[in-house]
């Protein structure tokens, strides 16, 4: 398996705080990888480094063999990396359809002159974009809500819409920042199913941050664990679950001292 994304010794410092400290993660093509860790471990900061919102102080990020360091967020998206956000950040006053159309912005090339003149090519491109947007909405199950202003969507559907918007740029790697946060169990199941379908039907590599251990353990093939900006473990869900440092990071050292034999159910 070739690594689609290779994070090599990435370090990000805010003032005196090292938010991400020398982290290496390799993500294989068409895999589902989870990034877990306690609050403040640097997970979202790592995502921000990947998508160009932050520029890491050290290290290298290779995507498809090419470096992402120093690129602007839109250039990184153009390379094929898309993401969603921990606290939903949709374009609130736009409809669901328009959100997905903005997601496709990079893939549309008609000139602005042709937009003024409504050339046939531009119109054809707009129609195709609209069709594709509706397909994506149908893919995440929002086809009936295409014309709803996105702030008016229920919470769970806003998360789905974020995924659809990210898909608009036709990514090969999708970064999901806590996709199941705040969802009820049935919505969580729907999201997990979607994650699988993204990989199986669309061939998209998934890298996700998640707190819900049920989701992490059932959905991911590889799990990486961050604590205080450092990667403390990486492996299959079972390996990580058995890792003493991970247990310590989550539950504190006393638990480990008192009860090393019996692994707590994460």
């Amino acid at each position, binding site marked *: 398996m070739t690594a689609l994304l290779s994070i090599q010794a990435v370090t990000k410092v805010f003032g005196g705080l090292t938010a991400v400290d020398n982290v290496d993660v390799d993500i294989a093509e068409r895999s589902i990888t989870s990034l877990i860790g306690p609050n403040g471990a640097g997970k979202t900061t790592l995502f921000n480094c990947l998508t160009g919102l932050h520029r890491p102080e050290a290290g290298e990020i290779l995507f498809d063999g090419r470096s992402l360091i120093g690129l602007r967020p839109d250039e990184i*998206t153009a390379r094929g990396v898309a993401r969603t956000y921990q606290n939903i950040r949709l*374009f609130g006053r736009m409809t669901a359809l328009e959100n997905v159309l903005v997601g496709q*912005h990079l893939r549309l090339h008609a000139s602005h002159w042709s937009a*003024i003149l409504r050339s046939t090519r531009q119109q054809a491109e707009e129609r195709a974009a609209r069709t594709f947007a509706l397909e994506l909405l149908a893919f995440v199950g929002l086809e009936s809500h295409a014309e709803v202003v996105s702030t008016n969507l229920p919470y769970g559907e806003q998360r789905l819409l974020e995924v659809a918007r990210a898909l*608009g740029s036709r990514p090969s790697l999708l970064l999901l920042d806590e996709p199941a946060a705040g969802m009820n169990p049935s919505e969580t199941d729907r999201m997990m199913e979607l994650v699988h379908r993204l990989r199986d039907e669309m061939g998209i590599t998934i890298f996700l941050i998640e707190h819900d251990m049920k989701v992490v353990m059932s959905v991911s093939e590889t799990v990486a664990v961050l604590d205080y900006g450092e990667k403390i473990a990486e492996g299959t869900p079972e390996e990580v679950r058995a890792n003493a440092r991970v247990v310590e990071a989550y539950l504190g050292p006393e638990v480990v001292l008192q009860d090393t034999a019996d692994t707590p159910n994460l």
Partner: protein
Amino acid sequence: MTPVSANGAIRNGLIAFAFLGYLILIGIPGRLGGSALPVLALVAALFFWVKLRFDAPDTGGAGLPGGSAEGKPGWQIGAPGQSSGRGVGALFPGRGGTLVLRHGLLAGVTTGLLIAGMSLAFASAIGSGASIQPVLDKIVPVNVGALIGVSPGQIANDDVPLFRYPLQVLFFTVAGLFAALAAVAARARNLQTTSMARLSAYLDSLPFRTTARFAGIALPFLLLAYIVWLGIPGVSAFGSNEGTVRLLFTLIATGSGLFAIRLAHPGREQKIVALLLALGVLTMPFILDQFQNSVMGLVFIFVMMGLGLNIVVGYAGLLDLGYVAFFAIGAYTYAFLSAPFSSPYISNLLNLLGISPEIPLLGYWTALPVAMLTAAIGGILLGIPVLRLRGDYLAIVTLGFGEIIRLFMLNLGELTNGPRGILEISQPGLFGLPPQSFSSGLLSSQGWIFLVALVSSAVVAFVAIRLNDSRLGRAWFAMQEDEDVAEATGVHLVRTKLLAFAIGATFAGMAGQLYASRQINIFPENFSLFVSIDALALIIVGGIGSPAGIVLGALALKGLPEVLRGVDEYRIVTFAALLVIMMIVRPAGILPSARRRVQVSPTDEQGPTTAAEERENDASLPAQGPPARPEDARSEEPA
């Protein structure tokens, strides 16, 4: 009728009287001449209508399912979840309709009696020779005469027929009734049980609604015909000030035309109405006189400004307070090209090159691309340093930029002739013909400017709407919503922002060029901060993001003050009061864009959708589908 509601009606009547009394004291009736009484009655009717529509009358309190206990009742009408289809539906249960009619009647009578009493007092005071001038300087025979509907001479001679006073009362009573009827008609479908139901059902019936719709569509055309009639030599319906009256009706005709287009059914009917209106408006420059044309020309120059600023502020969400800079750049660019002799530096340069500075370097139309390009470069030059700035910081920096350009114009005396300005700028020609050759008989010189402004605004509006409806428009709006996410979604921020600045500046440059040729002589003080503020105010008043709203905003902000010109020192105060009232009644602007309404009053409805629909439907559509929330009431048009 309960005493409570009578109090409410009388209170409304008093408020209307206070408002009208103010207008009378500052001399508006004298300005309007013979049409004073109908116009004042119309103002009263509008006020009553707004009160009845946005306030639950006191009678409603008990019968109101949702209750109107908290705060201002108008903000809390109806019960959430009431599936009335209209947010205000629950307002008048039972015999509400009758009560509303009585309310309107009583309020109208109150206002009418007070106005008549005031008129009587003033007329007898003037007739008896009492000196009221030092305090109430506008209470002169012309003013009071117009208010009562008699000639100034009759006032001075204390010769007013007594029946004139009951007639005044009648005017305002009819106004009150009319407002009440309009308010009832808007929600008639919810009245089922009373005798009012029949009237309401009639008001809500298809023939009535169709008639009302056609009346609305016909209104601008009737007004146009009226303007034409007023323009016939010898016709003097309204005493001394028909020029002002004509201007007022021109403004109303243009504005109501925009509403008429919305009233028409989408599709062929709408296209026909729009086409006819376009033709009607295009004939205006030919039938208006020099004064009205010059005002309308300025209005449409500001429409161009507003449309340009709307791209920066309304679409891209970049608050630009220095927008006048591009207006000035366009104006001065054309000034240099058209009147090089006015600039010492340029005339020297041309003399060195062996070109005579006495003749224009370029005509209006050949200079247009140059002025647009110069302004666009100015826009990009401003854009680059402020790329990283947001919100307040951006506003302050752009504010400074606007002042810098003005100070340049003021102090670069060698180039711009400083405060002495650039003089004798030529007017636009046509196909090589000088403006004088065709602007003499059929078209006055100001009419020609108005026509050019109209056509240019139409082009600008077309480009703005098309761009907003493309991927660029979506990128702008996404950027406005969340800059970081837009960038991470694939929007090239630098390019998108600079495009917004450049296109906005281009439009301002076009406006500036036309302004220069309208003014003939331009000076740095023409380009003060207030031009930026005017442009910003007109898009806020009209409705940010909505081209039709911008036209209305320009009519209201640049046109109305000219109508009020006669009341000179009170003009700005009146105008400020109107602005405040408007922002309370319609916080999102006169004709808001669907998106802006979402922001001001979030609803569950599926209404606001795509940019295309936004322009077609907008405010005239009732809420559809899911239970309408109470806030709907404030974003709907009357049926």
